[in-house]
């Protein structure tokens, strides 16, 4: 018999043996899935929380649930990134106080990410505009079909287009306008394409813009560029203790893809840091010319601008107040002001990490809510994982095929917190003790 033929028969035999194994493997996979979904009250995954905390599924299957806001009467508003049944905002109401929403209604014909409540108005954004709805004396949206357009004509160019928003206590509205670029190369994300200096994107994106919260139809000319050099911000929150805006930047991607000689895949998975910045009028956080390296604790010249992974730069750029490992995608930020949680949480920061994609081929990471303790408006000590398990387990985290990806966070008047998920549209309510 010719050897090739023997090889082929052998291969046929082998492949049938393999497919039997593959089937066996698959079915055991299914069983673990089923057993994980049995746990009551948590939906199809079980969240792990510090001792004394518990979570309930407040609502499910909302669609791509992004940011969330809670009114003083306890009503919960969730912004959807895609319309569901033609609606882009969902109102949830827990009528009997059991930690689950019995009433659900939709309004707003625009999709988007940002939502915030202030001064008896509900603000919500599309990827180009910000609208507001009047809240009446009993806390209901007075005229759900006719919002007032506050900001219009913001750039949305198919990358980092979500317009996350925040309000201060002096009648101002802050809007993230993400850079439609990874590192301001002439050809975005193309190997060998140089960085543009000065980066022309920064005139109209790559920063936070400040507008009046009550003036209709504002556009770029009416607002001010409050902070620049921010590649993209999704998680942001006004800190009422310091009276300043804090933002979480999504750091740049693809150091290894674009510069394989300077960064191996492991370095590229960890770098650069996801940074927390405290902003003031005129803040510059350095993108695209530098990135923050959380291992060396330095601002490093971006390789598109002549960097080699070691050269420092960005003397004019401010340092982050806190930094996390790369690519975890911080989509939500909340300073906790309630008194339900134990003392250590007071005024500290919860950061919601949507989970990574740009760590491949290294295992993916994130898909959790972390906590950073603060004292006198400054972070003290290290970060710790607060809520985990959204992905459904270690293998779903590693593969990036998370069942849920946490995104938005808000505090309720009773001091519980809500966390949204934009994969399946689950909203969890997390409480402490007997609340």
């Amino acid at each position, binding site marked *: 018999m010719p050897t090739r033929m023997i090889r082929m*028969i052998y291969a046929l035999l082998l492949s049938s043996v393999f497919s039997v194994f593959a089937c066996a493997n698959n079915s055991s996979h299914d069983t673990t899935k089923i057993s994980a979904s049995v746990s009551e009250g948590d939906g199809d995954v079980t969240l792990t929380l510090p001792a004394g905390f518990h979570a309930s599924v407040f609502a499910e299957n909302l669609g791509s649930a992004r940011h969330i806001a809670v009114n003083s009467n306890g009503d919960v508003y969730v912004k959807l*990134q895609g319309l569901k049944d033609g609606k882009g905002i969902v109102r949830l109401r827990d009528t009997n106080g059991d930690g689950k929403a019995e009433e659900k209604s939709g309004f707003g014909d625009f999709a988007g990410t940002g939502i915030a409540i202030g001064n008896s108005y509900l603000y919500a954004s599309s990827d180009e505009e910000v609208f507001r709805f009047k809240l009446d004396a009993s806390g209901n949206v007075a005229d759900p079909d006719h919002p007032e357009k506050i900001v219009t004509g913001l750039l949305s160019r198919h*990358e*980092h287009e979500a317009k996350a928003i925040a309000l201060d206590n002096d009648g101002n509205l802050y809007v993230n306008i993400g850079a439609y670029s990874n590192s301001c190369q002439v050809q975005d*994300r193309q190997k060998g394409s140089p960085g543009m200096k000065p980066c022309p994107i920064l005139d109209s994106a790559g920063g936070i813009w400040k507008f009046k919260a009550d003036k209709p139809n504002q556009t770029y000319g009416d607002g001010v560029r409050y902070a620049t050099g921010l590649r993209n911000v999704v998680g942001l929150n006004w800190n009422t203790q310091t009276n300043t805006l804090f933002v979480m930047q999504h750091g740049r991607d693809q150091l290894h893809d674009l510069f394989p000689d300077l960064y191996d895949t492991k370095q590229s998975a960890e770098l650069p840091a996801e940074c927390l910045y405290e902003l003031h009028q005129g803040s510059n956080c350095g993108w695209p010319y530098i990135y923050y390296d959380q291992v060396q604790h330095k601002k490093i010249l971006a390789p598109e601008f002549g960097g080699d992974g070691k050269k420092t730069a960005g003397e004019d750029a401010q340092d982050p107040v806190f930094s996390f490992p790369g690519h975890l995608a911080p989509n939500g930020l909340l300073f906790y002001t309630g008194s339900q949680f134990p003392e250590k949480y007071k005024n500290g920061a919860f950061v919601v990490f949507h989970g990574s*994609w740009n760590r491949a081929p290294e295992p993916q990471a994130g898909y959790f809510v972390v906590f950073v303790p603060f004292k006198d408006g400054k972070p003290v000590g290290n970060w710790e994982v607060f809520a985990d398990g959204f992905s459904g387990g270690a293998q779903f985290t590693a593969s990036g095929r998370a069942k849920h990806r946490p995104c938005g966070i808000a505090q309720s008047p009773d001091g519980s917190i809500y966390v949204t998920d934009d994969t399946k549209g689950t909203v969890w309510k997390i409480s402490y003790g007997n609340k």
Partner: protein
Amino acid sequence: MIYWIRLVVVTGLFLIGISAWTIAPLQSKLQASIDRGKIIYTQQCLSCHMMDGGGVQSMNPPLIRTKWVLGDKADLITIVLKGMNSGVEIDAVQYHNIMASHADLSDQQIADVLTYIRNGFGNKAKAVTEAEVKTVRAKTH
């Protein structure tokens, strides 16, 4: 009886042998292209489209049975040569990242990586050849 069984088995083996002689060289040529393509995929595409070709929610589209991957070869080759930043819906979902041009890859490398994705991740479609890439590249310049 035993004779007949023997005859059937021997003829069967003989037929398998014949097909192995004729198909195997083609198969192994395809396999070699797929193998080379996998290496290119790992270096150039995996970071966005992922190991399993499943892409990333709302960011990077999957390469599993999409109309581009399985469809017209010239369109598919053009995506690799020119990149893609169309914001079109892919199987009714929008993706919010951009794909750069990979025109720096050689014709053979592009043929290999496309042959790999057209025969991986549960896809089954004809190989892309170096000559086809050459033709499309000449037209897109």
